[in-house]
């Protein structure tokens, strides 16, 4: 991983737009990114849950994997069912290591002729090197020079339908090409907020124009990485490097659902022995939600302990949840003490504060499945 302190932050195709909009900028994973705009994190968060927000996520790595046996080849690196992914469908999965730890989490889309893969900004150089090293000679991994924006919120579909008719009909975790104003877009029904919405991959030179068209819609406001973090935390979604990393397995992280049924039977992915064993007999610890009783946020690395007793785990992400109206957190606890509702204590500034283990997500997901309505 690159040292964010030493290298100058790189711009995204939207860095100029963020500055024009008055964003508070900060380096994130080597990119000059908006943390929030004038209205602040809480308003941006609440607007996303009630209307629609546009996020710049161009710092993330957008990769293609081409080659005859690309799906089977990628299955050697992830526990997900990639070979079974129909054209136009996408899947969340993880790159694992031999110990069952997580090297990165990623979204894989079967575009038809190739796989489109979105990886974390901080991991992308390592991921590309890992894939090039491990995939057979017939597979080529390339990074795309494109912008990526997320349009998220209950009004996202109505907004996009006016610019790209038909996009509103895409079910959650599917993808299709669209064109807006001559720009060729790869649209997916996906996101990182728990709300309905889209991630839209755009040629770099068209990204600002398309972003401005979306922001021109009265329902849409810009939102920064600050709101993106509180939204994903309330939605119970993991942040790589905080909630999951090489020391956590997919089973401990509550991501056992990403291990495909066929993959459970066949194995053949890094760390399969550890992961399949944890699936059979249970992991030693589990990722859970934590809801402090008071108003004090319990942040990452806060110790979680039994009431008046010994440490049972540690918080990995914690902040204020604007939709909850109080502090929310997630972390790992001993599997024997992980049931929702259990009273625990979080040790904030050397003081034990009452808290409870909570079911995730804190805010129900509102994805568009294509059924009903």
């Amino acid at each position, binding site marked *: 991983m690159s040292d964010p302190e030493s290298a100058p932050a790189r711009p995204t195709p939207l860095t100029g737009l963020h500055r024009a909009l008055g964003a*508070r900028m900060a380096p994130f994973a080597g990119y000059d990114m908006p*943390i*929030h705009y004038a209205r*602040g*994190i*809480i308003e941006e968060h609440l607007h996303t849950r009630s209307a629609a927000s546009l996020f710049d996520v161009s710092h993330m790595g957008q990769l293609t994997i081409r080659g005859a046996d690309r799906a089977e080849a990628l299955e050697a690196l992830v526990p997900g069912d990639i070979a079974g992914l129909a054209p136009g469908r996408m899947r969340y999965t993880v790159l694992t290591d031999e110990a069952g730890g997580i090297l990165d989490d990623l979204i894989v889309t079967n575009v038809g002729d190739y796989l489109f893969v979105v990886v974390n900004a901080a991991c992308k150089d390592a991921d590309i090197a890992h894939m090039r090293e491990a995939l057979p000679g017939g597979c080529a991994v390339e990074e795309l020079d494109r912008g990526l924006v997320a349009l998220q919120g209950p009004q996202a579909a109505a907004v996009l339908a006016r610019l790209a008719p038909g996009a509103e009909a895409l079910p959650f975790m599917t993808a299709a090409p669209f064109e807006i104003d001559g720009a060729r877009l790869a649209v997916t029904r996906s996101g990182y907020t728990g709300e309905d919405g889209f991630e839209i991959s755009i040629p770099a030179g068209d990204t600002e124009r398309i972003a401005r068209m979306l922001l021109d819609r009265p329902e849409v406001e810009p939102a920064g990485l*600050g709101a993106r973090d*509180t939204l994903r935390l309330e939605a119970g979604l993991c942040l790589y490097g905080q909630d999951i990393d090489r020391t956590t397995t997919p089973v401990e992280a509550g991501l056992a659902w990403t291990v495909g049924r066929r993959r459970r039977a066949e194995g053949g992915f890094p760390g399969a022995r550890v992961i399949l064993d944890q699936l059979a007999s249970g992991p030693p610890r589990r990722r859970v939600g934590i809801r402090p009783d008071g*108003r*004090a*946020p319990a*942040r990452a690395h806060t110790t979680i302990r039994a009431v008046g007793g010994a440490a049972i785990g540690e918080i990995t992400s914690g*902040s*204020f949840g*604007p939709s909850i109206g109080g*502090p929310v957190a997630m972390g790992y606890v001993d599997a024997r003490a992980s049931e929702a509702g259990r009273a625990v204590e979080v040790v904030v*500034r050397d003081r034990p504060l009452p808290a409870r283990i909570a079911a995730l997500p804190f805010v129900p997901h509102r994805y568009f499945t294509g059924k009903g309505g």
Partner: protein
Amino acid sequence: MADLRYSEDHEWVRVEGDIAVIGISEYAQDQLGDVVFVELPEPGRAVAQGDEAAVVESVKAASEVYAPVSGEVVAVNDPLADDPGLVNREPTGGGWFLKVRMSDPDEVEALLDEPAYRNFVSTL
């Protein structure tokens, strides 16, 4: 409004007799963003200049508030417990943090006056 004096850690002080009213500056609240929690000291506690006197938490992070003067904490702003957003809305008014009975009022003289603080902030 009486003159405010500032520390380079972005606390302000307003002197009322031998009492120093203490809060954080407009610049500090703007840098923090939405304040969601304030932890205040117990009245009666002795604080020395530069000691951690309170904690202010925004959505993003927790920050220490240092005592700009020495003395005994005689009051804290209880409404911040239920309405921490007061710190954003009225940082130098209703969003005050604590009151200290000063043991060395000369400490105030060494703090920055308004123009000097504004000049200091412009260099950040």
